[in-house]
Each structure stands twice: as C-alpha cells, then as structure tokens.
C-alpha cells in the first residue's frame, strides 16, 4: 500500500523551522554551560552533556521517522539511514564521554562519595541502573543502521524488516531518555 505524504505549506514550515532552531539553541545551551562551570572537569562534563542532548534531539526526531517504517509506508530511505547513522555516532560519543566523566564520578570526594554519604539510594539504585542502560542505545541504533544499509532499497518491500527497524529505533530512544533523565538528576544532585 502506498500512502502519500502530508505536505506542509509555507507558513507552517516557517513556524516549525523557527521552533526547531529556537529549541535546539536553547537546549544546547543547557549542557554547553557545563564548559564554564567552576570545576576541573568542565571539559569532560561539557562534552558528555552536549553529545547526550544531541543524541536525544536526533533520537526524538527519529522516533517520528520510525512510525512510517513500522506502518510499512514508503520512506525516503537515503535520508533516513544517514540520520540513523548520525544518531549511532552520537550515541557512541555519548557512551565514550560517559565513561570519561564516570571516572571522576567515582573519584576521591567525587559525586559518588557525596551521594553515598547523603542519599545512597540515588547511587545504589539510580546510578547502578543508569550506567548500564545508557550503554544500550548505541548498539541498538547500530543494528538499525546496519539493517538499513545491508538491505538497501529493496527493504521497502519487506514490511516485517522495516517494522523491526522502526521498533528498534523506538526502543533505542527509550533507553536514551531513561539514561538522560537519570544523568540529569544525578548531575543536579551533585555536579562533578
């Protein structure tokens, strides 16, 4: 079944693009401010924050692109798989920078020590959960990327495969937002 795409008119395009530009700039300022925080680890914190929020933004956009995949509708595959590849690389950057900042988290008089002394549950339950589920989005997104490139254009004729890819993107986003929110809570509780 071929279903036509909804086409936005000129006015709605201006509204949508302005909203995206404003939201993207302001959201990026949230982790980019980490670069200027008074700590020896501002560089690590800034890189992890920026890569995490970029992964969230692209991951969220991709959840919308995954819906036609799940429904077996026609999609612009060349553009989609480039976005999924980009999301994979950002998730990898998030995981690597996460490892980097995690060292300081566990360091002497670091956030872990403080949290264990004051509110241990935030480390024992939340962080112990977050540090692992945050590793999930990258391999999930890589599997989606692999599938889209491996099958190429004929994938459009296999609704079961496109459905699997769409669901994998949605699951990847779910783990991403879980890890992201947990990370924000911990960073707010005790910054590095």
């Amino acid at each position, binding site marked *: 079944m071929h279903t036509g795409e909804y086409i936005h008119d000129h006015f709605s395009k201006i509204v949508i693009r302005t909203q995206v530009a404003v939201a993207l700039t302001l959201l990026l300022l949230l982790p980019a401010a980490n670069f200027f925080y008074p700590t020896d680890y501002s560089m690590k914190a800034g890189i992890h924050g920026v890569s995490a929020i970029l992964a969230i933004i692209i991951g969220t956009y991709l959840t919308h692109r995954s819906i036609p995949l799940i429904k077996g509708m026609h999609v612009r595959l060349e553009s989609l798989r480039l976005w999924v590849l980009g999301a994979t690389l950002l998730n990898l950057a998030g995981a690597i920078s996460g490892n980097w900042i995690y060292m300081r988290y566990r360091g002497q008089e670091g956030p872990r020590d403080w949290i264990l002394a004051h509110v241990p549950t935030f480390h024992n339950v939340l962080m112990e959960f977050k540090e692992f589920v945050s590793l999930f989005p990258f391999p999930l997104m890589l599997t989606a990327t692999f599938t889209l490139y491996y099958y190429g254009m004929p*994938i459009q004729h296999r609704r079961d495969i496109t459905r699997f890819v769409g669901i994998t993107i949605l699951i990847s986003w779910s783990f991403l937002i879980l890890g992201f929110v947990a990370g924000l809570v911990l960073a707010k509780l005790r910054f590095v």
Partner: protein
Amino acid sequence: MINETDDQKLHSGPVVAASLPLLLAFLTLMVSHHISRLTKELDNVVHSYGHWIPGSTGSGPTGSIGSYSGKETLALGVWLVSWLIFHLLWRKQDFPLQAWTRIFVIGLLIITLGFFHPLADPIVLFIADLVGAR
C-alpha cells in the same frame, strides 16, 4: 506495492543475527555486574578483563571506572563475536520476524529489570547461596 522478485532475494536471517547478540551482550553486562558485586575476588576477576581501557584503574580525584571496564569488555566481546558467527550462519536463512520482534522486546524488558537492584538483588543472592558463591 510488493515486488515478488525483490522480495525473494531478501532473507530475514541477518536481522536476527544482528539483534540476538544485543540480548546476549546486555545479558553478559547484567550477569558480570551481579557477579562482581558478590565478593572482592570476583570483582577483581571481572575487572581484569577491562585493564586495556584507559582509566580502568587508579584512584585519587580523577578516579577510574573500575570493574565497569571489565563488564563492558565482556559484553563487547560477546556482542561482536556472536554477531559475526550468527551472520555467517544465518545470512541465507529466514525466520518469522514478527515472532522474533516480540521475543526481542520482551527479552530487552526482562534484562532491563535485571539492572534494577531492588528487584534483582534478592534473586541474585538466592542463586549465589544456591551455588555457594557467597
């Protein structure tokens, strides 16, 4: 619009071969994590696999990721090796993807719950007592 000739060329094997290793890798992460929490000796064993990662050892303010590096290494190894093997075995095979998608999602959900300590710890301690690993 279904093109029968194109349709016949595609096998679903590579999809299963790429996604089953994710369950195995996440399971490895979970099992190695719970094992490392039982005793200091077991933690050292898990940690030893991760020594190649920069920042896996050390103390002081800059810290280190400790045995987390070993859990990551084991999971990474299981993921990539099993993906390669399954891909070579199944690239011309077909599996019912609808059923696999369901198993995959439920599997991920169960493994995720395994990282939630209030839920997982009683089960881990029960098994550890059974095998005398504590």
